[in-house]
């Protein structure tokens, strides 16, 4: 069975990509993922804001007690107060890239224009074969317009594209008025891939402690429908590759995403739930399914059930939507 595929010009041995997660926090973790068979690894994200916070915290801690008491004018070696910077991340990237045969993609969440470009360039220099922009931007300010949000995405992409040679993917949220148009804009601005979708962490409220809790939940299979629908819609309409993310738990989920038109399928939740070795289960299952269905290559599968191009796209879309809605009303959710 030939599972090999292409993603942003990168040759992958299969379409399963381990997306950003704690599993890629160490070189050993990346190695385990590679050993389990994934086609590529996206490292956890470098958060510019975190680096700034850490720098400020370190500065505060190094300064605490300094020049206060004659016997201990400092408490740390001089190097301790230095700005942490991206060194830790870049070192991981560099070591991970040389430790495994598969492509290692860096992930970046910037804040400032200089941060986006500077860190992206540094990632490229450290051996990242591609960079995924984790535009984790929540417009919590009700005064920010939708256009402004879109503009910001385009701007960041253009900045980074202008700064690096390696391919650049954009990980998107599903919260745009017109996700399709947003995808086209990014495509036009030079995105080498779109990753659909980013899952924002949804903070929750604990009524017992009367406090807000960080909502860190792994995705479930049902959540895959939204990105799959968009992939099916966008397949074949963009130059950018399409990466599916969210809700991959079983081999069938890979198959479904590929059928919808994904170039690669990313997973974090299933690997966190079952361990890196689960990648082998997913891939073996995919091969078995393809064998059962008579597919010899991933290319034969990809986009088979995408929304077809051609004459009356709107009708297609409407048809699918209406059919789905009707089905939902009579079966899954019961009549109302």
């Amino acid at each position, binding site marked *: 069975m030939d599972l090999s595929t292409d993603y942003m010009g990168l040759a992958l041995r299969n379409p399963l990509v381990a997306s950003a997660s704690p599993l890629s926090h160490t070189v050993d973790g990346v190695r385990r993922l590679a050993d389990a068979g994934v086609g590529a690894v996206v490292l956890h994200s470098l958060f510019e804001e975190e680096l700034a916070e850490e*720098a*400020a915290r370190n500065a505060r801690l190094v300064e605490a*007690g*300094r*020049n*206060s008491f004659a016997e201990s004018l400092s*408490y*740390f070696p001089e190097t301790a107060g230095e700005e942490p910077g991206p*060194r830790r991340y870049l070192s991981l990237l560099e070591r991970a890239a040389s430790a495994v045969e598969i492509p290692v993609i860096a992930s970046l969440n910037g804040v400032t224009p200089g941060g986006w470009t500077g860190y992206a360039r540094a990632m490229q220099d450290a051996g990242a074969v591609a960079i995924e922009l984790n535009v984790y931007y929540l417009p919590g300010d009700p005064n920010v317009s939708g256009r402004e949000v879109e503009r910001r995405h385009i701007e960041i992409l253009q900045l980074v594209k202008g700064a690096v040679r390696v391919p650049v993917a954009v990980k998107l949220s599903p919260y745009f008025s017109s996700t399709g148009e947003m995808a086209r804009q990014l495509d036009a601005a030079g995105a080498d891939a779109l990753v659909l979708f980013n899952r924002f962490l949804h903070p929750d409220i604990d009524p017992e402690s009367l406090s807000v809790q960080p909502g860190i939940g792994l995705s479930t299979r049902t959540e895959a429908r939204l990105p799959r629908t968009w992939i099916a819609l966008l397949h074949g309409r963009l130059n950018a590759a399409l990466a599916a993310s969210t809700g991959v738990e079983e081999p069938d989920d890979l198959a479904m995403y590929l059928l919808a038109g994904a170039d690669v399928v990313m997973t974090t939740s299933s690997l966190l739930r079952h361990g890196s070795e689960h990648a082998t289960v997913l891939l073996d299952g995919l091969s078995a399914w393809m064998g059962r269905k008579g597919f010899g290559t991933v290319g034969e599968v990809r986009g088979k059930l995408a929304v077809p191009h051609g004459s009356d796209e709107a009708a297609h879309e409407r048809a699918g939507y209406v059919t789905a809605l009707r089905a939902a009303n009579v079966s899954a959710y019961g009549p109302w």
Partner: protein
Amino acid sequence: MRVTLDGNEAAASVAYRLNEVCCIYPITPASPMAELADEWASKKQPNVWGSVPVVVEMQSEGGAAGALHGALQGGALSTTFTASQGLLLMIPDMYKIAGELTPTVFHVAARSLAAQALSIFGDHSDVMAVRQTGFAMLASSSVQEAHDLAAVAQAATLSTRVPFVHFFDGFRTSHELNSIEVLTDDDLRALVPEELTGAHRERALSPERPFIRGTSMNPDVYFQARESSNPFYARIPGLVVEAMDGLAGRTGRHYRLVDYAGHPEAELVVIMMGSGAETARETVLHLAATGERVGVVTVRLYRPFPTEALLEVLPQTASRIAVLDRTKEPGSVGEPLFLDVVGALVEAHSSTKRAVMPFVTGGRYGLASKEFTPGMVAGVFDELRQERPRRPFTVGITDDVSGSSLSYDASLDIEPPDTLRAVFFGLGADGTVGANKNTIKILGDEEDLYAQGYFVYDSKKSGSQTVSHLRFGPRPIRAPYLVDKASFIGCHHFGMLERAEVLSRAAHGATLLLNSPYSASELWDELTRPVQQQIIAEEIQLYVIDASRIAREAGLGERVNTVLQTCFFAISGVLERAEAIARVKAAIAKSYGRQGTAVVEANLRAVDHAVEGLERVEVPQRVSSRTEPAPLVPADAPEFVQKVTATMMAGRGDELAVSTLPPDGTWPSGTAAYEKRKISDLVALWDPELCIQCGKCSFVCPHSVIRSKYYDRSQLAGAPDTFRSVPLVARGLPETGYTLQVYVDDCTGCALCVEACPAVAPGDASRKAINLARLEPLAAAERENIAFFETLPVAERSRVDFGTVRGTQFLQPLFEFSGACTGCGETPYLKLLSQLFGDRAVIANATGCSSIYGGNLPTTPWTTDADGRGPAWSNSLFEDNAEFGLGLRLAADRHVELARRRLGELRDELGGEFVDAILEAPQFSESEFRAQRERVAELEHRLTALDGPSVVDLLSVVDHLVRRSVWIVGGDGWAYDIGFGGLDHVLASGHDVNMLVLDTEVYSNTGGQMSKATPLGAVAKFAAAGKTVEKKDIALQAIAYGNVYVARVAMGADPEQTLRAFREAEAYQGPSLIIAYCHCIAHGIDMRNGLDQQYRAVASGYWPLIRYDPMVRASGGNPFLLDSPRPRLALAGYTGRELRYSTLANSDPAEAERLGGLAQAAVSRRWDIYEEMATRPAHHFPADARKDR
């Protein structure tokens, strides 16, 4: 090239570049030399011959000297940096090194020795104690000299083969920043040619050309052999001159073995060494310029004593000489330099080289960095003019006991008028010192400007105050004494204006910059009467700025330094204003750049707002205030506290006369209670409605400011309206009230209590039963509440439940209000010790943090209960603490034995039943102690009716019939390193002592150097690349003896286990060892999270809680108890929150990951071992073989 650096860096820069091996041990004030060497080595900076020196931290100075001796015998160019007791610990090796004619230089930041008290400050007591070792000695008087003579010493030691001590004054020179010209690598190579280093290597031990060195000699040859090295010593003066000439040839800076300055036909001459000689020189030049026939001889080469050079420079006209020594040798005819000078003159006179024998007197000055000023120099000359000058004399103090002290005119000012003098009063936490160091660097780099800076710190680790003394001028600044009349005063905290010193250091017409919450128009009415008077009388130019607000708004928190530094530049006129601001900004970018752009930007914002916020105050010409400053101590304080302690607290300790001070180092307990420091704006505030009375807040309070009492509610009559009281949560005591009182003026706002509190307000998770609140609105009422609280009775000890955390909090802490760091992790354990056993405890305290916050004057925290009983505390040394404590035990044992024997002898007179009751009394529970104390009181009463030698003898030791609790306390530097041999030996002795190791895992007191307690992967000084050896498990080592009670505790993880361990250890009649996890400022944590880190240390399995009780083994049980549950947190979940670990992850991520993996494996491995031990049968552990336990 001119740079601005301090004496330590000046010396270390040369020593590092001219050596291959540095063997060191941290000791104030020499530690920075070693730390710099380590920093340079970690950056792979090479010496002048291209190799990177190795810096090795040893377990003690004795160890450093041994390693150094070996390195020298191995042919390496080797050096060390030390001071004080450290130098003394090197003496045995120094004899060997000198005896074997081995070239090396010891760079010494000369410091006092611990005598009646320890002092970290500068004098020549230490170097004078090694003058007989055979080392040559070279003294530097200034930062420039410390640099230059370091090179001269290195050249001379290699050319003479005689080892050198190169010394300069601790703090005054070691820590003074000054503009100096630095020697290049080429200069150093020229001064120390490779043939000399090659010759040193040639003499090394080598199996290729073997010999033996270090033989044992008999009466036949030892003497002659000892004399055989004389020619080497004879050559020293000439070869040192040669090295000095070499230096002069390259730099133009010419030094001589003995230098003279002053009138060529001086009649009155002072002779001295060190920084004081610099002051004397400047004063003499000032006086000689007016025609006074005075002179000063500066001795640089002290050993071998340069008799000829001295006679050569000393004017023949000198008829009266005063030799000034910065040391004291009690019982001697005179101090060492005096004796040497007298010897030289007598020799010259008797051999007719000198016709007239001048009158020579000797004086002491400057002990422990006591100021030595031009006025004092002039005072010495005045004394020499007397018909009968005193012999010996002291200068700088008022000696009303022996009458030795000279009077002098303190106001003599010899400084050039074009020197700008500035003094800044700040807090340690506000960054004032750092900003001033920056200012000096900024101005010191100016082409025509020279700078000097010296910084004075108080003795507290929290809320400490700093005074920065800065000078700037067009010529090199030679004024090694504090700025007295400053033209600029910066008072960086409004409350500090009350300090007498602030305005008294202002020259007439000086500028005063005040950080004030009041605007220019509001300020005047807020000043006290004396301050207004002084401002008007001295015509002070007054500026204000609300720097605290500006700093806060700029995101700098309490660090007001940048704001006030900018204002200094804006008003002092030292540079043109715009230019100055630009330079400040550039300096900010440089200093803070490596901490990130956000930090830089916040500081730059502060600069801009500082300029806008500065206001000039129109000073009224009339004193309007009626406010007088509040007295420092209450009127009912003991007389000693009123007279002595309060004077020291006010910063006027220099004024205290000799007669006011105890002659033997014995000081009253409990004086910290009189020093209400009010160092935090935020203090703990109790919410009685929410409180569940668990006692955790007061259990963990590092400063003993949270006290609990229960009482009959009828005793609330007369309580202030704001006094908080709730019913005691206890069955069967309905009329009993409970109060938790916070001593707000002593609270440091550390918030450990808030973190420890388990009670949360329903509906408001942010509110607990104890919270932080602003002091100011509470202060007055709380002071009244405290006064009332103190009238309530302290719980009767025999009615307190010692078995629970809650119960112990009704016991009075006999350790309170120490100056330890805010949120200190050590002091809660000491407080607990004092509560449980304080009324019968004797404490031996190793030198370190605990001896500093425990015993650093002016006020100390160990105190007494209402009966006048409390911990008897003493600090001997760093290295000998376990042995010292054992000695206390041995003395107690002997006296118990004596008391029991005498009691038996008096059996008939005292009554058999009564005597038996005393002799057989069990003494473990508080009710038993109470009963025994009553019996002993009765015994003393009955003894008054008797007489005879047995009675007198018994009375002298009768106290010992109440069982004493001997505690040996210290940090990990003591327990794991310098004192480990003693600790191990005392553990093996089987005697009943209790050792408490306050384990912060680094040398905290000297600034975070690695110890053998430092964990694998952590960064510390001397382990900048992460420690690569696991922490020593001294618990397992102690368990191996079989008769040692051992516990590892962490109060933040399990306070009940801590309590159990303390009680079991104390009750165990043999050696006990408690290893207590202490979070520390040197871990790089927000101290508020200290308890949480303790919890994490335990939860990750890094710090397993254990108890090993030999008594259980004796009764057939498994003595090894594993008290903490299996690890349930990855090690990174604990280590990742501390800068000491995360800093390596940033500087060398791969190494951090490697060490982190190894550390996690070590934790797991050790856990397996412990778990296995916890299931072993008793006979798998060693038995306690003592017969009479």
